[in-house]
């Protein structure tokens, strides 16, 4: 299909009146990759996407597509196509005319554009419905129409604004797989905005986590999951316990912090210099109910809550100044030695499971 383009953001800002929605973010999205912008609502991810698409003006900085600065180009001139959250299908047109819309705008003849649109609809397995209106389709079918309408422009990059949020959970997983398959077969750059960690993990080659208008971390999903860069990322991904405190030692590649409640915790890694607060992250599913073999890699506490989640059991533990420390045990490990709320336990983890977090 069409050639695909690299997308580069060079200290791009979006300022609405007095509020800054996006703070000078810089990012390179390699050509042909699946990139997910992930973050809570209001973090600036949708504004960023809309600036790439051209539906929002860039306040400062440059948006580069391929080798071209596209700041001042109209959406259709950029070689991007956008898929809207609610799909924005034209209710008064049938599927063929919806998909053929951009061709009609270009002045392609009726016969030709209808033929091309029907071909695209065939590709999306919507052939039986070509004469229907969007309102007569299910959510998943509407989404495929929206995809067909976006792809018929032969874009270099497809921008998707929370494309799966309107679907029910079962369909969501199914459409997620279809999106991934489509992206792989087209080899096109996809930029996908979502607030679901699971979606980002499942789809992305590159996950960009945003918070408060800034990029917290941009990395492959595995790295985001295993080595979150900041306390926000660790907390948002939910895979780690974040322990924050005052740095007390930073020697031999081992950083130690002291939590207000008294406990000291260590992790191997370089702590950022000259900061008031240091943070350490510990994988929730690597926590053991054993006494620590080395100081700084465990504590004694009290179980405050137990949730049986089926394959795993989630324990909430209080102690050593930590309000809510989560341990996720496999069901076999838990039922070999069950505990209940109120029990005093020792908690520990292997030194390799603790990492030092940075602050931005």
């Amino acid at each position: 299909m069409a050639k695909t383009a690299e997308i580069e953001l060079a200290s791009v800002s979006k300022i609405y009146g007095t509020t800054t929605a996006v703070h000078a973010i810089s990012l390179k999205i390699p050509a042909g990759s699946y990139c997910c912008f992930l973050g809570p609502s209001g973090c600036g991810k949708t504004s960023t996407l809309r600036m790439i698409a051209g539906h929002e003006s860039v306040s400062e900085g440059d948006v580069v597509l391929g080798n071209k600065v596209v700041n001042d180009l109209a959406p259709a001139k950029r070689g991007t196509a956008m898929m809207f959250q609610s799909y924005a299908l034209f209710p008064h047109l049938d599927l063929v005319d919806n998909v053929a819309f951009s061709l009609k705008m270009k002045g392609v003849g009726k016969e030709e554009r209808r033929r091309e649109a029907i071909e695209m609809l065939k590709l999306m397995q919507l052939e039986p419905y070509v004469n229907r209106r969007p309102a007569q389709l299910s959510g998943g079918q509407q989404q495929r129409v929206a995809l067909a309408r976006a792809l018929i422009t032969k874009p270099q990059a497809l921008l998707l604004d929370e494309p799966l949020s309107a679907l029910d959970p079962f369909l969501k997983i199914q459409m997620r797989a279809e999106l991934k398959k489509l992206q792989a077969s087209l080899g096109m750059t996809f930029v996908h905005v979502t607030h679901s960690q699971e979606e980002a993990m499942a789809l992305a080659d590159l996950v960009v986590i945003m918070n408060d208008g800034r990029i917290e971390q941009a990395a492959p999903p595995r790295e985001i999951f295993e080595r979150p860069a900041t306390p926000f990322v660790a907390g948002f991904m939910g895979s780690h316990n974040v322990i924050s405190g005052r740095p007390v030692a930073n020697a031999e590649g081992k950083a130690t912090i002291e939590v207000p409640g008294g406990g000291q915790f260590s992790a191997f890694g370089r702590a950022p210099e000259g900061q008031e607060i240091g943070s350490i992250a510990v994988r929730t599913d690597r926590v053991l109910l054993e006494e620590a073999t080395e100081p700084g890699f465990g504590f004694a506490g009290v179980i405050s809550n137990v949730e049986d989640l089926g394959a795993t059991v989630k324990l909430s533990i209080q102690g050593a100044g930590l309000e809510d420390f989560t341990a996720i045990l496999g069901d076999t490990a838990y039922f070999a030695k069950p505990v209940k709320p109120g029990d005093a336990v020792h908690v520990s983890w292997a030194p390799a499971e603790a990492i030092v977090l940075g602050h931005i």
Partner: protein
Amino acid sequence: MSGSRTNDTGRQFHLPAWLPAYLQAAPLTIILGGFLLLPLLMIAIVSFWDYDFARMYPDFVTFNYSETLGSWITWKTYLNTLKFAAIVWAITLFIGFWVAYFLAFHVRSTAMQMVLFLVCTVPFLTSNIIRMISWIPVLGRNGLINTALVNTGITTEPVEWLLYSDFAVVLAMVHLYTLFMVVPIFNTLMRIDKTLVEAAHDAGATTWQVLTNVIVPLAKPGMAIGTIFVVTLVMADFSTVQVMSGGQSASVALMMKNQMSLLQYPAAAANAMVLLVLVLLLVAAILRVVDIRKEL
């Protein structure tokens, strides 16, 4: 019914299940029946009566219709009324659409939208007659426009066709009825999802193409409702035509009024029935073209 059950301890009063529904429907039924259906029925009956210069005679004659439909004057009057309806419809649709479009898509804040919308409705706080009559000092032979034209030397003589002409009739009708076009179109436009406009731009549409391919097609139901308002109002109008044309132009309603002042009630009734059928046919035609169900 429950009264027959002897083991009931407390005597309970039960309404039959069907009664509340009928009671709820009753007020509207009475109003529509008493003020719409009954008078219509009376007009229909009277249209078949005989009459002379002094009174009507209950009868079943059809010459009221044959005289109405057989007269060249009637056809000319109907054509004239339809001409007014068509011109006024076209102008109010044009103005109404652009006003509504501006309000819905180019006024950003909702508060400003509401303020401007209310400004549009302010003239409607005065009576129709007063708004119509206030055109006379503007358009008259010694009115504002003519005085200005003569004084600036653009024309040497006052322009005659400004007042008491078809132009004046159309102008006054447009003034009176444009709001009936603005309101339903504005209502429809406000319901258009703004992301549709973005999606159209994303597909490469220019602003004009967005207008012709997305906004106008989606505004059709509002246009149809506005059209029904304007067409029925113009078809039934007699005061505007009488005042603004100075009696030089005729409309169907004006013809009926004249017949009634000559006590020719059955003839007027027959005329009314013909007009009713014509207007209903027009509305049916509009509804065939545009589906307005979503707007109701």
